């Protein structure tokens, strides 16, 4: 540890770390616009400048390594003036759109303008009038609101390994765009929405389905049902000012009923089904010499990456649909039959932590008879917006239970919300299927936590299974490259989640969550798994009943028809 002097107060710093990190740890907040925690500094925005004794110019603290005895002033008049000028220059060609902007209230640029006391337009610049790109089913790009901080570009490349977007042109004509300025829909974008989380402004947002959902809720001829993904109940609370990691499953169910949804289903139950199907599929592949390692298929961004960049691995993907699409298929078949409802009358909504789920719901394979299984997908953020719009108070409602028959889950399905959770859930059931006995230690610490790549070996009877878990597609790509080179013959089962840390950090989740918040969200899921009794998919009585009454058994013809799908090579410009 070394000591530096910040605003006349000694603070501790780790040798080699950047000044910004030491300052933040000491509780001194220095604003940033281009800094991405965990990635190398880019030094593009200069918002983080501080005064360092002995240096003439202001220094960006995000890119300055600490040194013993360093004396800094974080909020000197000079530093403040510089920051204010930067914001004023950024605003020079910015549309004054705050009143109509999705980000209003959660916009870093707006916050900083307010904090620094910008009260008038000091610089007038020529406005650009770029086309808003609405081509993607998941992401909308509004380049006029872009301040060229580069965070989206770096996240897309360094965290996701996709590089769908980059800086184009130069000087005053610099912009962020796709290859050949084509629509995001035909680009290599995998719809993950991590760029939305990174963006400090309203330049990136999700393709909203709020209007469609409200219209369905107001339509007396529609029977509107909703499902919520495992990672939503542990993040929604943040939108209402509660601490990250607060689980409000019960209140959320009550609120969804209050909004007028006629049934509230839990996608974690469908995750339990995924476990049953996927574990059976793995048993099958292990016994019949099928393609290994088998790779999970519940994350639609990952699926698109394989289809476009790794078609040689398509056969490794489990044929299971994602929990969202399994539940969607059951709602318009099993549930409709039981209720004597015409499937065409049902409007099926999914609340997901994910923007790629919007893309997934629109995939042609996810429809039967021309009608989509899932009609609309709301992100956690959009659900919060609807709740606010309808004036409901999440805290004031008494918790309600989910609806039968598609509402009761085990904790295994719930674990799908954190990276490693799906693998853990599948291994519990795989063990039971192969040995008839429960795993002695169902909790697998090696597969938990936010790391990009986690591995373990599991003994099941006389089988010694190599398991890897990747989250963040850059990590997944490294793993795939290793497998392609023949270096990982020891692996039989791989879980991949598109977003770093899994769905708890999905692109549709509440904004402004740092690594600690993501960790807290994970812990909330782990607590649920620790505290509840039914911890395996095969132990879930509702799953048993579903198979008895309707599906037969895992991988039966009906299961295959409703719960499984196919993937195909996609021709996109990489």
């Amino acid at each position, binding site marked *: 540890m070394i000591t530096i002097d910040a605003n006349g107060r000694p603070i501790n710093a780790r040798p080699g770390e950047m000044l910004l990190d030491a300052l933040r740890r000491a509780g001194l907040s220095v604003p940033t616009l281009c800094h991405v925690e965990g990635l190398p500094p880019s030094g593009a925005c200069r918002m983080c400048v501080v005064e360092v004794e002995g240096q003439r110019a202001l220094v960006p603290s995000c890119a300055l390594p600490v040194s013993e005895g360093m004396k800094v002033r974080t909020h000197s008049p000079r530093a403040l003036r510089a920051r204010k000028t930067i914001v004023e220059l950024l605003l020079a060609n910015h549309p004054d759109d705050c009143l109509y902007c999705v980000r209003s209230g959660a916009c870093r640029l707006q916050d900083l303008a307010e904090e620094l006391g910008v009260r008038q337009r000091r610089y007038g610049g020529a406005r650009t009038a770029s086309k808003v790109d609405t081509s993607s089913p998941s992401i909308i790009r509004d380049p006029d609101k872009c301040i060229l901080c580069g965070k989206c570009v770096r996240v897309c*490349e360094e965290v996701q390994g*996709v*590089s*769908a*977007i*980059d*800086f*184009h*042109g*130069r000087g005053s004509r610099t912009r962020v*765009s*796709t*290859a*050949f*300025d084509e629509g995001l829909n035909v*680009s*290599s974008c995998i719809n993950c929405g991590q760029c939305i989380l990174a963006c400090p402004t309203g330049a990136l947002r999700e393709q909203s389905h709020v209007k469609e959902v409200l219209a369905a809720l107001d339509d007396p001829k529609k029977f509107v049902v909703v499902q919520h993904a495992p990672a939503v109940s542990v993040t929604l609370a943040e939108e209402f000012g509660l601490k990250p990691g607060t689980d409000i499953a019960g209140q959320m169910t009550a609120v969804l009923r209050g909004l007028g949804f006629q049934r509230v289903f839990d996608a974690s139950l469908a995750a339990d089904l995924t476990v049953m199907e996927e574990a059976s599929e793995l048993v099958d592949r292990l016994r019949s010499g099928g393609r290994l390692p088998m790779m999970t298929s519940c994350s639609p961004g990952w699926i698109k990456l394989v289809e476009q960049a790794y078609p040689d691995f398509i056969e490794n993907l489990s044929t299971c649909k994602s929990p969202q699409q399994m539940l969607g298929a059951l709602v318009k078949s099993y549930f409709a039959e039981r209720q004597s409802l015409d499937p065409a009358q049902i409007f099926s909504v999914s609340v997901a932590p994910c923007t790629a789920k919007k893309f997934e719901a629109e995939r042609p394979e996810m429809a039967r008879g021309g009608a989509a299984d899932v009609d609309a997908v709301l992100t956690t953020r959009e659900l919060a917006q609807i709740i606010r719009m309808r004036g409901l108070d999440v805290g004031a409602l008494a918790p309600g239970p989910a609806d039968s028959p598609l509402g009761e889950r085990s904790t295994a399905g719930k674990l799908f919300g954190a990276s490693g959770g799906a693998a853990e859930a599948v291994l519990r059931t795989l063990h039971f299927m192969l040995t008839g006995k429960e795993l002695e230690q169902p909790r697998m610490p090696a597969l938990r936590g936010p790391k990009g790549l986690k591995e373990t070996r599991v003994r099941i009877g006389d089988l010694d299974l190599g398991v890897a878990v990747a989250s963040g597609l850059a990590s997944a790509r490294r793993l795939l490259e290793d497998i392609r080179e023949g270096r990982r013959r020891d692996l039989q089962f791989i879980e991949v989640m598109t977003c770093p840390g899994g769905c708890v950090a999905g692109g549709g989740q509440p904004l402004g969550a740092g690594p600690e918040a993501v960790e807290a969200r994970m812990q909330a899921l782990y607590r649920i798994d620790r505290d509840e009794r039914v911890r395996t998919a095969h132990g879930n009585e509702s799953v048993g009943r579903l198979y008895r009454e309707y599906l037969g058994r895992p991988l039966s013809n009906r299961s295959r028809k409703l719960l499984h799908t196919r993937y195909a090579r996609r021709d996109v*410009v*990489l």
Partner: protein
Amino acid sequence: MIAPDIDFILRRHAGAGRDALIPILQEVQEAHGYLSREAIICVSRHLGLPASKVCGVATFYNEFRFRAPGKFHVQVCRGTACHVKRSARLLDATATALGIKPGETSRDGLFSLEAVACVGACALAPVLAVNGEFHACVGPDSVRRILDFYRGKAARDGTDGG
């Protein structure tokens, strides 16, 4: 299908890394007169770079064109001497007359427009060059006349831009 000439260029850069990107793009432009979408995709595959990145690098430099040049390639000099003689206005007038921006090619394929650094004919400033033929001391008013001359020429040749 890779065009044979691009294939030839890429072969010359077998095993090259990303630092070969700009030389390769220059050679492709030399061969084709511009960087087509297909050519950029071939180059990005060859170097293992995302196409968005290659487009990013290529659009950073003024020297690269992304549309096939027209039958008549119009260059307006933006060097210092021409600048002093108000070549900015000349460029605007030419762009208006052609209905295209620098770097673009007219829809009929007849004209393309480019702003270039000093062409070395400062005594003639401001200079407008068409396929290398210099027109001296061009005021904004004479642009249309010059362009019409080439239009007439194309009509006489019985060709369009193809």
